[in-house]
């Protein structure tokens, strides 16, 4: 159960090695937190000791976002072992390389499967658990790439566009259930995912995303842009004519 300050006792990070996800966890942890579950495709890489603290149990669980048939059972198992889930962060995702997708449609479909389908089934399984609990919060890592697809990463962007729409609808469908959904829309973040890529304007760090996302989650916000100014940038970008949009240096 969360307390009056919305400090969670149990946090589940789906995509337990995600740099952004871990930065959000850093900000959400408090002396009230008793259990942190790192749900990972590669449990060996989870480094649970990084979160070690008095009174905190850090569990590492195998989780594959692509294996949608396992998600409901996985979430039920988590609840049976650790009790109510106060906050779940859906942080997994793959960026991929657009030029490779152009030649390998199957690889593109697999990326979309993780980013969209996998996130849909995971979020629905968590939402069902939280509905049964009567409380909880789901944070979904969307991306500004979904706000307007670009030639450089439109497979990724379209998967995030779908996820973003899904998560907003999920949030509305949970009104009155005691469960809230917060959609987090980062811009370019210097993390493992973007290593080696040319930095885009208004680039930021996992730590900054973590702080803004955690503050938004605590306040029960529907949407968090990181950095916040991107909200206004995209209000404009959405309406820029396509010939111009194509030529903008957006990274």
């Amino acid at each position, binding site marked *: 159960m969360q307390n009056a300050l919305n400090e969670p006792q149990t946090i589940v990070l789906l995509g337990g090695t995600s740099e952004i996800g871990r930065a959000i966890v850093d900000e959400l942890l408090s002396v009230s937190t008793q259990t942190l579950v790192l749900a990972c495709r590669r449990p060996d890489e989870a480094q649970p000791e990084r979160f070690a603290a008095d009174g905190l149990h850090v569990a590492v669980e195998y989780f594959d976002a692509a294996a949608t048939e396992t998600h409901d059972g996985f979430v039920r198992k988590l609840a049976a072992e650790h009790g109510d889930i106060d906050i779940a962060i859906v942080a997994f995702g793959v960026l991929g390389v657009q030029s490779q997708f152009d030649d390998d449609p199957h690889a593109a479909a697999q990326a979309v499967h993780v980013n969209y389908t996998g996130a849909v089934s995971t979020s629905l399984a968590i939402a069902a658990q939280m509905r049964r609990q*009567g409380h909880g919060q789901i944070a979904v890592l969307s991306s500004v790439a979904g706000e307007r697809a670009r030639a450089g990463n439109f497979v990724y962007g379209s998967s995030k566009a779908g996820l973003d729409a899904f998560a907003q609808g999920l949030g509305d469908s949970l009104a009155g259930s005691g469960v809230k959904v917060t959609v987090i829309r980062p811009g370019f973040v210097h993390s493992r995912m973007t290593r080696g890529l040319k930095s885009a304007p208004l680039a930021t760090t996992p730590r900054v995303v973590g702080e803004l996302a955690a503050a938004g989650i*605590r306040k029960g916000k529907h949407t968090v842009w990181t950095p916040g100014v991107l909200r206004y940038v995209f209000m404009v970008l959405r309406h820029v004519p396509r010939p111009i949009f194509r030529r903008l240096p957006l990274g």
Partner: protein
Amino acid sequence: MTTSVPASRGHRALLAGWGLAASSATELVDVDAGTLAAAVKDLPARGGIARGLGRSYGDPAQNAGGHVLRLAPTNEHIVIDDVAGTVTAGAGVSFDDLLAVIVPRGYFVPVTPGTRFVTIGGAIASDIHGKNHHADGSFGDHVTSLRMMLADTTVVTVGPDNDPDLFWATVGGMGLTGVIIDATFRLIPVDSSRMSVETRRIDNLDDIMSRMAASDSNVRYSVAWIDLLAKGKHLGRGVLTNAEHATATQLAASQATDPLCFDAKQIVAVPPIVPAPGVINRLSVTAFNELWYRKAPLVRQGELQSIPAYFHPLDLVGNWNRVYGRQGFLQYQFVVPFGAEDVLRAVIERISAATLPIFLTVLKRFGAGNPGHLSFPIGGWTLAIDVRAERAGLSALLNGLDTLVLDAGGRHYLAKDFQTSPAAVRRGYPRLDEWLAIRERVDPAGVWASDLSRRLGLTPFRTN
């Protein structure tokens, strides 16, 4: 044609405590003595909890994903026994309704909180205390017997001489041993419905505390309101009010014709809108506290006040809890034993240094505690502060205060709590294991559960 009768007439509801800080979804079921058993049989895996008027600040009267049983106010069955000086009434009856019946008959409740809008069930389950704790103890001390429904729907009658273990586990047990159906408790005979009040403005904490200590034996009601924004040599300045029930002869001629008249009204209500952010900020609160302090007389004795004016001033403003805005607020109330005055001072210094926008704070002296395993009062000083539920700065401050309080042998009040940890309850309530054993005896399956019990580990966790 067959008709099926639904076992319970519940509806989905988002419930929060008085602090409005966090809500959870539940099935809210209205019950009375006749329908209670069916409703208990119908409880889902996440169990049920009784709810009174929801005047607890935090989460003890809500049960996410389970059921919440709200007892009907059975005002028509309030029975006064003039020989024994007791009253028997349903657990869903509010103090507001009860006072309207008993005051004109020359009685007062043995203990009243700062609001009339609590139920008898809630008063027992939180073992509430009043401004007379040093003289009269807490509410449970005056209960001679109560009837309750256990998890298996059997109804038992318990009291200090009748299964005292279960009785004292229920007094202060936050509804987690069963649903109280009705109770019999002693009343205080009064001559009039007025209070004779002495008000004194005092410039610093030490003077307030020594004056309160000195008046323990000869004043029935005593409380100090402290200005936590005052600093330096004014640290802990405040206004001390002491009171007695006025005798009929003390009343003015105009009141003497109807010495027991009781007329409680709500004067204004805070509109159901979220106030603009910043209505409560450090400046506005500093100004308010200053005004309020200056308004108090240096000394005023023998002032006659009505029961509502003296005991329940906040009830004059309905829903005042909304002024803290959408985030809600929390009340932090703790007690430290006598001898730990330096800790109390340290706590006040820390809060004062944090310059949070905190309105008046209540300081009281408790007399000795009772045998209730989770009953809050122990001989010592209790302080209660209201503060907006905003994490920035507050979380670290309160965690630090928790340590000070617990190291001094103190504890937190569960009826107010929405912030401490299972470990804090374990340290603060050394008889927790005894209580858990009694709970296990009467509810082995863990049918009774609340958000508070899950948060603080008072009931075994069961999912769905």
